[in-house]
């Protein structure tokens, strides 16, 4: 490290009170920013859980669909129509609906029931316990071992329950990539059993899951589905549509944005003010350095180094604290929806860089203005 920066480092860290105040300001801001954006990322991920877990390439749905949780049933003939589109390798129906379970201890629990195509079981999750063929047994269901699993009373294979007055039996326990958003467990069964056990309107297909013959066929399939009056989205497009809904149509996004901005302002206020005071207190010393022979740009490097050092240290501590908090929260709240993404980290980093830049800007201005003559004049 160049000597001038080593001086800057020592001036900063040896002023314990200010250094801790600066670190606290940045850390607190980073912690809040990442916590807020992680919660939002967690909500968005869980909002698309069904889409992620089923994993189909193309989803066909009613154009009015906003999220995967709110289904508008499709007429049965749409299945045949989609299957007849050139480029479609296969298309299967998917049922998604809510049911009320009566557990073996007599308590009631809401659940999401996913009905998979009887023949192919396309989109089935990998099993931890049980065998796939058992789903064709009488009243058979798979439970998903996600963060909501315990709400089913931690059942085992063979555990029985009631589903809308029908007998249900657990024949397998599966795991999935993402838990759902609404805090209820998920059961998988066959499409036809789901239709039979859950009260339904006239049409029962929630979505059509389509696999194209090749990626090049995706565009023509989407166009053909649109022409038929329905909407076909790739997996990524559907996830984006769901994210957009939560972001722009629910107020969640706005609230998270406001909280993030408040965190930024708090961090900027604490750190900016403390750093400015720190520079002011050392202003005469900077003037003395200038008189001795330090160049203006060397003093600017010192201040930028100090601001960057404290910002990066605070950023690291803030990220660590946030990770620890989320980890601790998940130990006690398994369905705690928070996800630290590279995007969150990048956003917080940009915010911290802005805080450091603004904080140092005023210090730099002050230091560049100080005249060594003022040091002599006293």
């Amino acid at each position: 490290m160049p000597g001038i920066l080593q001086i800057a480092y020592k001036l900063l860290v040896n002023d314990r009170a200010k250094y801790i105040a600066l670190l606290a300001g940045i850390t607190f801001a980073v912690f809040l920013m990442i916590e807020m954006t992680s919660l939002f990322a967690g909500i968005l991920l869980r909002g698309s859980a069904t889409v992620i877990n089923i994993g189909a390439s193309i989803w066909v749905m009613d154009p009015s669909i906003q999220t995967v949780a709110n289904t508008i049933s499709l007429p049965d003939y749409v299945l045949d129509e989609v299957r007849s589109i050139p480029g479609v390798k296969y298309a299967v129906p998917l049922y998604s609906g809510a049911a009320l379970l009566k557990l073996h201890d007599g308590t009631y629990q809401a659940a999401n029931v996913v009905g998979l195509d009887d023949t192919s079981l396309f989109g089935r999750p990998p099993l931890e316990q049980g065998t796939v063929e058992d789903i064709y047994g009488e009243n058979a269901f798979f439970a998903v071992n996600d963060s909501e699993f315990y709400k089913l009373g931690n059942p085992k294979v063979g555990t029985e329950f009631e589903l809308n007055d029908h007998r249900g039996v657990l024949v397998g326990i599966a795991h999935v990539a993402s838990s759902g958003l609404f805090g209820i467990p998920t059961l998988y069964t066959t499409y036809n059993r789901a239709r039979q056990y859950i009260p339904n309107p006239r049409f029962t297909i929630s979505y059509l899951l389509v696999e194209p013959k090749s990626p090049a066929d995706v565009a023509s399939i989407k166009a053909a589905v649109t022409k038929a009056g329905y909407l076909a989205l790739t997996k990524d497009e559907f996830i984006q549509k769901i994210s957009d809904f939560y972001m722009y149509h629910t107020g969640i996004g706005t609230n998270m944005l406001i909280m993030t901005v408040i965190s930024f302002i708090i961090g900027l206020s604490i750190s900016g003010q403390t750093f400015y005071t720190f520079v002011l207190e050392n202003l005469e010393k900077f003037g003395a350095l200038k008189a001795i022979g330090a160049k203006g740009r060397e003093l600017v490097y010192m201040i930028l180094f100090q601001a960057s050092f404290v910002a990066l240290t605070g950023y690291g501590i803030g990220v660590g604290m946030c990770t620890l908090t989320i980890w601790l929260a998940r130990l006690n709240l398994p369905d705690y929806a928070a996800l630290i993404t590279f995007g969150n980290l990048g956003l917080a980093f940009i915010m911290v860089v802005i805080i450091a830049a603004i904080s140092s800007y005023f210090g730099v201005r002050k230091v560049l203005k100080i005249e060594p003559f003022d040091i002599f004049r006293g």
Partner: protein
Amino acid sequence: MAQKTAIEAEGLNKWFGEGDAKTHAVKDVSFQAYFGEMLYVVGPSGSGKTTMLSMISGILRPNSGTVKIEDTAIWTLGDDALAEFRLHKIGFVFQDYHLFPRLTTAENVAIPLILQKRNWNEALKEAEVDLDVVGLKNRAQLPPVKLSGGEQQRVAIARAIVSRPDILIFDEPTASLDGDTGRNIVKFVREHILSDQRCILIVTHDSRIYEYADRIVKMEDGKMMGIEREKLDAQ
């Protein structure tokens, strides 16, 4: 043997403000200072001593006039070159010392060497040598706030001499010290810091240290006048 000129100031003028608020702080000052001498600049507050000192040390640009230090007309240099010149040729001892309380004494002394981009550890070693010269080697690892006023002044002197400058400038070196300590400091400078290759300029109010000067010039209302030391001693 003729003395070699260290500083040559010619027709220096400096004023501040404009119109009715214009103050002519230094009026047509010319003088020479030589290697091997300790030259005092004395005079009442507001007489222009500090302004004149700032102009000859390259930190305040005169409105007119020239300053030559060892044949270099310093006010023809650009800002960076002038800063570099000060760093290598001039050592400063400020009235309030301006030591960094968050650095150790040795680190404070090493600052000019660090600004010269010398290796950190080497700079500290050299700083300790100069702390030894001023009798404070055993204080090297202490922060300046743990030292007495006289000791802090010595640290400031060590910092001023560490880069071996030819010119040393002291601004009111005894202002913050009691009489005995102030005299001892200046006596020490006279006996240990002054050499044939060095010129020391001291701005002071303190008549108790006049005995250590080779020459004394007096400033009044921005003008400089030569003065006999004996007369000042008598005052």
